[in-house]
């Protein structure tokens, strides 16, 4: 499985590359501004470090990277940064000098790519020229110059990048596992590509889907007015039900002789970002006579989510619904004892909702506790003893 996963991931990246091109110019301009400030030396360092860190899938990364990275470098980045850089670059490059020849090859590629872009964006060709000048300072570098801007880009991107993007960058670095010597060259090539894959989310391996089991389809057919969806992922049947028919469907699943889902393994809620509706209640049902499972889902709005309680069907739902109420604020109609269960009764908020921060509520909760405790009168007051 792992192999397929890798392959698909790699494959997914390549097609994304071309689509990303339009975004490049903006990135280039950003990079240019930063470069002027003077971060080239840093850039090279970071690039080399990244190369060092990454060890693994060199082939994939390079393949993916080269077309995209070169393009970016040639297109937007070089124009501005080159002017400021020449002196700095020369110094850094001189130390690196032995490495340059291989760079030249890469640069050539970039130059080739640059030419087509020139047609696309009229602005770019003039930019390319200044870069060449800088390159002239170091004879081989003429080719190199275009490469350097891409280095700057990765840094900028990493700084700006979202957490998810950074992760991708790490992967990309790994591919360029070439020896540290080539650091100056390699980072340039690899650096630009790293950023690009980040922008477009990779196509992820899909969860294995199957046709739902027969009994699930039967249920869906018999209750088509309340069943919203039926699917089977990871070999697990799921019935998505509208909140109105939730309780009756649960009763049907439990009592129907051919179903007999008499054992409630799990009841929980969830609160998501980016889905609509945002809340849901999930039931994992198990049938002891037939030894099979089914999942029932109810989608609920994030505003005051509420649904019928199933504690009358499965008593074990009692505490689990209390926990769902405690953690997610989902209200269960007909529950006899809907109190908080894990958190103290005075707690404010529902921690598993996505708008509740992972950290940082501690101080506030302590304040609340102290306020509450201050209101409670002491039952006995000790009198000071007198020894007269």
């Amino acid at each position, binding site marked *: *499985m*792992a*192999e*397929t*996963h*890798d392959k698909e*991931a790699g494959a997914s990246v390549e097609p994304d590359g071309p689509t990303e091109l339009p975004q490049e110019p903006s990135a280039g301009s950003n990079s240019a501004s930063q470069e002027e400030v003077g971060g080239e030396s840093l850039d090279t360092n970071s690039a080399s470090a990244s190369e060092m860190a990454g060890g*693994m899938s060199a082939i994939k990364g390079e393949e993916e990277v080269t077309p995209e990275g070169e393009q970016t470098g040639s297109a937007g980045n070089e124009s501005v940064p080159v002017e400021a850089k020449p002196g700095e670059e020369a110094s850094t490059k001189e130390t690196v000098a032995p490495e340059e020849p291989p760079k030249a090859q890469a640069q050539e590629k970039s130059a080739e790519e640059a030419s087509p872009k020139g047609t696309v964006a009229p602005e770019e060709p003039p930019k390319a020229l200044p870069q060449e000048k800088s390159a002239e300072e170091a004879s081989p570098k003429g080719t190199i110059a275009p490469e350097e801007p891409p280095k700057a880009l990765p840094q900028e991107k990493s700084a700006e990048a979202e957490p*998810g993007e950074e*992760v*991708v960058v*790490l*992967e990309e670095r790994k591919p360029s596992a070439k020896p540290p010597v080539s650091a100056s060259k390699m980072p340039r090539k690899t650096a630009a590509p790293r950023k690009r894959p980040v922008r477009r*989310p*990779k196509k*992820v*391996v*899909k*969860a*294995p889907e199957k046709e739902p089991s027969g009994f699930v389809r039967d249920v869906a057919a018999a209750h088509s007015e309340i069943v919203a969806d039926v699917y089977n*992922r*990871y070999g*697990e049947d*799921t019935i998505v039900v509208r909140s109105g028919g939730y309780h009756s469907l649960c009763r049907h699943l439990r009592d129907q002789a051919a179903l007999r889902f*008499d*054992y*409630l*393994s*799990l009841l*929980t809620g*969830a*609160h*998501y*970002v*980016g*889905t609509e509706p945002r809340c849901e209640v*999930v039931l*994992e049902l198990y049938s*002891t006579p037939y*030894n099979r*499972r089914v*999942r029932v889902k109810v989608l609920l709005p994030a505003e005051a989510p509420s649904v019928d309680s199933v504690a009358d069907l*499965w*008593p*074990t739902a009692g*505490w*689990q619904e209390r926990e769902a109420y405690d*953690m997610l604020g989902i209200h269960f109609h007909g529950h006899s004892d809907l*109190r908080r*269960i*894990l*958190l*103290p*009764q*005075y707690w404010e908020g529902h*921690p*598993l909702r996505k708008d*509740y921060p*992972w950290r940082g509520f501690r101080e506030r909760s302590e304040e609340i506790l102290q306020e509450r405790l201050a209101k*409670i009168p002491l039952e006995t007051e000790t009198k000071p003893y007198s020894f007269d």
Partner: protein
Amino acid sequence: METGTVGAFLEPGEKEGDFILNMGPQHPATHGVLRVILRTEGENVVDCDSDIGYLHRGQEKTAENLPYVEFTPYTDRLDYIAAPAMNLTWVEACERLLQLEVPERAKYIRVIIAELTRLASHLLWLGTHAMDIGALTLFLYCFREREMVLDLFEGFGGARLTTHIFRVGGLPNDLPKGWLEDLEAFLDLFPSRLSDYHKLLTKNRIWLRRTKGIGVVTADECVDWGLSGPLIRGSGIALDLRRKQPYEIYDRLDFDIPTQEEGDVYARYLVRMEEMNQSLRILRQCVDQLPSGPFIGKVPKRLKAPKGELYHATESPRGEFGFYIYSDGGTQPARVKIRAPSFINLQALPVLIRGALLADVVAVIGSIDIVLGEVDR
């Protein structure tokens, strides 16, 4: 004090002699920080309510904010008596979600560790449960043997209690040299020790009087209340996920699912004792069949799960332990729900305890075998 401020309270009854008794959270027989509020009539317990959450650490929220692999050590802290069982469930759930394959050798070693975990967990349960009821002798004997199991954990994974002993995709390392010999020495020794325990307790008249007919739960109640593990098997239902929905290599192994019909504390005691015996059988088979090969499969550096959800459950020493994971396609799960058997089983305490004598409450709680790290998460 306004009601509900600190927890649950039961209204005292009308009858004379009704009494509200608070037990815990620092009571040694609650095996952690469980607070039970008992309503009694004389010495009979009429009703009870549990106040939990003293050990709540927000494990589910933590899981939603960490990459899949990085949550593995946190699972040690759920059921800290049987940490490898928690690790196993999590890494298996992740492997299913990420569609990774585990080498054969790793599967066998996982089962070896998982069954050793069952032994260690049941040994601790036996020692403390017997001590709660008054058989102090057994406690040190059980810990003597448990120490040997923990030494095996330490030899393999480097840690004794919170082991972090499995990895997504396989194992952190292969078996060290001499480890299997140590294991076999333990397997040779342990049956005689197990028979010693039987001699001390199984036909002990005091033990029988304290456990027989106490905390009875019927098979129907077990299903209704979602009980699992030795509780449901002690009531006559052979529900064991190792057999019903096999994972790893349990479908290739030959072992029995011990059950008892009575559903009382004594039945659960016999079930657990026999489970230790069956674990020994499984261990011997695994040692005999252990294949060679790699100990970890191919795992991508960055784990990104496809969009979708799954529920993966295994048979932990305490029952059905499962993770419900919902992935939105990112590197971190969007929702993780922990199905903790202790939490579900503890919920049925009022059913088990109703009508019992006050002194039996300790025996009943011990027979549920709760771990508060798992109850409160």
